């Protein structure tokens, strides 16, 4: 390590501080600079700060975000979220490693160009299986197309040009072109479409403003562009490509200035586009918001938490205020005492949206009543479930609204310091929140005393648990501790602390503005209001949905989700991610509320909702979630540390056809023990996916014990065979990455079972549908 390198650290400590609390931000800055955590640099940190070697090593090895060996120039992030998992993320990951010749115990290719990482969820479930290379997103990949993605990325790198969008002159607009720009939309190319729209407007002189808005919820058809003209119904375009931008602009707006003169030729161009065979005509993507599909998607929904997402510019404070923003706060501070605010929230029946469903008003009351001058408030945005991206979209789409919720809560409980704990994997959310806090501060919207700041989480699912989250903010390993004492009595730095989920805070301004009664009118007896879900998996339409409590699973899957893709048989929904469970199709009439879900063995969780069909193996699903929780266990208590590992060993055994006679009993016993005696919520709920699948799909477990995977998913229990339908085209042999098929033109091919790695490539490329799974 040379002198210059250590200068960075010295400057960093000077900037961030020597306090042990700062250890996580310090490590994050080091990693950003060096792309990993070099030992010498960490030792230097200990020399010049109050951070001890034990602290820095403990923390640096606890969080997933931190690397201890150099990373490649570009990172390939393979999403292994639930939706991607069921659609073959494992094969995609293997495909990249195979193509880049990365050995199993490594993650970076020999030349140091690419590092392949698995990430919990990129939040683009409708593109599954999805991968990000650098800042480019590739969707619908498979093991064999991984190589194409790498080539395409390298190709793109070599001829990358930065387009600059020209802004429109303000004040001249007659209409608005809206495009949602949150992470998953950007991942699907909305950024390029936005730039193209800006360019098209500037070039044509159209009197339109191009406006970025938050998430519309309709992930399955992004990039989504909405053209709003006064007095006309809005026009919606789905799946827009940058090259369509000009046509859309010209279709709705009269060109101005010089462009007017060439309008005729422009129309000409438009006609060309519409008829050009090489391009899909732009009208093909156009969908009217009132047409069946979209209205079914939006119809049964009710927007409270996501009220303005999709219509407002997330960064525009004036727009938020003119739409009624901060009215609720003003009502609180001008008209209501803190006790009255708490009373209003209590009467609304709002319960924590993080999963456990504790009554929000009661939690607030406990913090209000706790003794102490100093009180904290924490917004939990550490959304780590695979298959959940509600918090991210809320933070990205309506930062001011969440801030308003937090400021109201701070007023109610008497807190003077607020912290937004947001995953570092959500850079856009962090940026928008940072900017929004600054805007609010400048306009004196936070009140005289309240200080707000952001703490980026470093990748640990267990930090969603409030005591672990607090440990993490204090700069320690994210280990939970037993409650009581609850954070309401003794939380951050030993002071009374209110911890609520992002979605919960997002509900608060609506409740204050519309009244507790309006909120509690929606929902069921014990579960009031709405819940935001990330709908994904085998449904036709996936995305963010906000539904009234009490809606049935059936309504979500069939009406909002549009049913199962390819008319396959609906088998189950997985609700609540790693803490939740699988509810079989036979119980699809179950209403979505806290108690009903627990009754059928699931859990509200933070709101992942993955739909499964007949091609999904329930034992594999259970194993998938257990592998996740096992990996995310903090390792503190015996039951979670070793118990979940033992359960995973058994499930691995069952999935590989080596299950033993008493394995199911053992599994059940362990599930009971881990659930009953683990220290925190992560451990206590970890067995849920196993318990619920054992309860409803025991026959599938038994089939595995007998050596059969009924859905044909578990690699060790299936084999691919070529039927007599083979036309001898040799495509399978050409594409097989394992050389398991000998090329025999015009003859029936055969698969060498010994060599076959069961990646499914042959089945995908076969034009004659002649490959079957046995």
């Amino acid at each position, binding site marked *: 390590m040379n002198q210059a390198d250590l200068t960075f650290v010295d400057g960093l400590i000077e900037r961030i501080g020597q306090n042990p609390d700062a250890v996580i931000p310090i490590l994050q800055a080091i990693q950003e600079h060096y792309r990993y955590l070099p030992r010498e640099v960490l030792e230097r940190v200990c020399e010049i700060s109050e951070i001890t070697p034990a602290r820095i090593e403990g923390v640096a090895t*606890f969080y997933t975000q931190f690397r201890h060996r150099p990373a490649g120039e570009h990172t390939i992030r393979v999403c292994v979220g639930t939706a991607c998992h069921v659609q073959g993320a494992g094969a995609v990951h293997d495909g990249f490693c195979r193509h880049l010749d990365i050995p199993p115990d490594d993650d970076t290719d020999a030349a140091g160009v690419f590092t392949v990482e698995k990430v919990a969820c990129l939040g683009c479930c409708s593109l599954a299986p999805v991968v990000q290379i650098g800042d480019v997103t590739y969707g619908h990949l498979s093991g064999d197309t991984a190589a194409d993605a790498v080539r395409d990325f390298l190709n793109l790198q070599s001829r990358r040009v930065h387009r600059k969008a020209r802004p429109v002159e303000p004040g001249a607009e007659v209409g608005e072109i809206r495009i949602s720009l949150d992470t998953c939309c950007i991942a699907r190319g909305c950024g390029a479409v936005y730039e193209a729209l800006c360019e098209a407007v500037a070039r044509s002189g159209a009197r339109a403003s191009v406006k970025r808005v938050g998430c519309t919820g309709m992930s399955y058809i992004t990039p989504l562009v909405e053209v709003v003209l006064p007095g006309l119904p809005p026009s919606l375009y789905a799946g827009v490509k940058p090259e369509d931008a000009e046509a859309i602009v010209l279709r709705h707006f009269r060109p101005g200035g010089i462009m007017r003169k060439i309008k005729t030729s422009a129309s000409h161009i438009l006609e060309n586009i519409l008829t050009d065979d090489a391009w899909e005509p732009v009208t093909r993507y156009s969908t009217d918001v009132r047409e069946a599909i979209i209205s079914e998607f939006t119809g049964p929904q009710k927007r409270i938490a996501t009220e303005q997402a999709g219509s407002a510019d997330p960064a525009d404070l004036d727009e938020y205020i003119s739409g009624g923003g901060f009215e609720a706060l003003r009502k609180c501070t001008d008209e209501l005492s803190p006790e009255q605010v708490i009373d209003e929230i209590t009467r609304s029946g709002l319960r924590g949206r993080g999963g456990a469903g504790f009554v929000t008003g009661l939690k607030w009351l406990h913090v209000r009543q706790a003794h102490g001058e100093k009180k904290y408030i924490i917004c939990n945005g550490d959304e780590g479930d695979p298959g959940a991206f509600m918090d991210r979209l809320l933070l990205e789409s309506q930062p001011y609204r969440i801030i308003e919720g937090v400021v109201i809560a701070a007023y109610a409980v008497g807190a003077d310091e607020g912290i937004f704990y947001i995953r570092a994997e959500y850079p856009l959310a962090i940026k928008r929140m940072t900017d929004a806090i600054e805007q609010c501060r400048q306009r004196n919207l936070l009140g005289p005393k309240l200080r707000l700041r952001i703490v980026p989480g470093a990748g640990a699912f267990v930090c969603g648990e409030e005591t672990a989250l607090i440990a993490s903010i204090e700069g320690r390993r994210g280990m939970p501790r037993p409650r009581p004492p609850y954070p309401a009595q003794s939380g951050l730095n030993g002071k009374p602390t209110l911890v609520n989920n992002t979605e919960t805070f997002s509900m608060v301004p609506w409740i204050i503005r519309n009244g507790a009664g309006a909120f509690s009118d929606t929902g069921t007896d014990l579960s009031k209001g709405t819940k935001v879900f990330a709908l994904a998996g085998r449904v036709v339409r996936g995305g963010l949905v906000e539904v009234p409590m009490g809606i049935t699973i059936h309504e979500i899957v069939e009406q909002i989700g549009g049913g199962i893709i390819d008319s396959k048989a609906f088998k189950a929904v997985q609700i609540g991610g790693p803490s939740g469970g699988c509810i079989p199709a036979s119980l699809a009439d179950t209403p979505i509320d806290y108690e009903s879900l627990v009754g059928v063995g699931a859990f509200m969780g933070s709101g992942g909702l993955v739909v499964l069909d007949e091609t999904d193996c329930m034992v594999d699903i259970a194993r998938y979630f257990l592998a996740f929780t096992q990996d995310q266990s903090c*390792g503190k208590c015996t039951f979670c540390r070793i118990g979940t590992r*033992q359960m995973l060993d058994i499930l691995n055994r069952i999935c590989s056809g080596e299950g033993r006679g008493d394995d199911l009993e053992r599994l059940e016993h362990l599930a009971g023990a881990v*659930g009953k005696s683990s220290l925190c919520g992560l451990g206590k709920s970890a067995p849920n996916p196993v318990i619920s699948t054992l309860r409803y799909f025991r026959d599938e477990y038994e089939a595995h014990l007998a050596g059969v995977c009924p859905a044909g998913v578990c690699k060790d229990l299936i084999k691919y065979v070529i039927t007599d339908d083979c036309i001898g085209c040799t495509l399978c042999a050409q594409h097989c990455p394992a050389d398991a098929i000998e090329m025999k033109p015009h003859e029936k091919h055969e698969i060498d079972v010994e060599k076959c790695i069961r990646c499914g490539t042959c089945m995908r490329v076969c034009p004659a549908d002649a490959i079957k799974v046995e």
Partner: protein
Amino acid sequence: MPHLMIDNRKVEVADGETILDAAKKLRIEIPTMCFLEGVRANASCMLCVVKVEGLAGLVPACATLARDGMKVQTDTDEIRTARTDALELLLSDHLGDCVATCQSACPAGLNIPLVLRQIAAGQTGDADGASEIPCDDCPAPCERACRRKQFDSPVSIRALMQYAAAAGLVVQPSGPDNRRRFSVHIGRLQEGEIEQFLAGTNRGGRIEPSDDGLTEDQARDEARRCMHCDCRKADACKLRYYAELYGAKARRYKGERRSFVQNREHPDVIYEPGKCIACGLCVRIAEDAREELGLTFIGRGFDVRVTVPFDRSIAEGLKTTALQCAAACPTGALSQR
């Protein structure tokens, strides 16, 4: 001042005291491993779980604050099962021999490794008090069981026992009959593991005794060939004690077997990470004593380990608290040499 009921008996505790504190007042014994008076509780081993009326599941008594009106049960079937589960899970990831293979094989259960350590250290006893030993006519199954033979040839245990007896060292079984007690065993060594055992031993070949037995020098050299496979905490290990008390089965859960590691860098203590139950007592003791480097947990989940930061040696990590940590360690992971 909270009042609570434990096993249907009333007790009053001070604010901030735990269920475990309250139980102690009533002389109700709750088993603990990761808890030590004076060190802040960690709630890791979960052996102290109890049932609190109205709370779902079980909670650790050592770290759960006593609250007014609590009703606690400390010894029901449900609790005993949970404790047995905890012990069996810990045992599935606990690598070592409670009793050395030679001692397990000895018909008299003599504490062979202890005697060999005394010989190697040059200790002598009272020559007049030479003890009677049953070794003279014994076919020495101890030597057949001796692990050293996996490297070269077994230690001349019988000759060393005879030497020790003649030299007046006390040669007797250790405590209660170790062979009948609950024990865990490593079983077959994996490739390369023998090197861990050989560290610090005399790598010379076996010394066969002459008709007059071993000379003092020979005895010392031969005794230094012993690899000390026994656990130094065989009688003080809480995991073993409670496994016995709760009738836990050592092999109920089998897991991926770690590699055996024995760290002898420290002059006072031996560290065997395979025996560590990650209770964190040593980490906290070193931290509280402001050891410059101390110990830390690295990794998380199943792979969590206790090590010295930055891969430094145990000797650098534990400069002042090594013996205190070894005494506090509930298993043989950290033991006095």
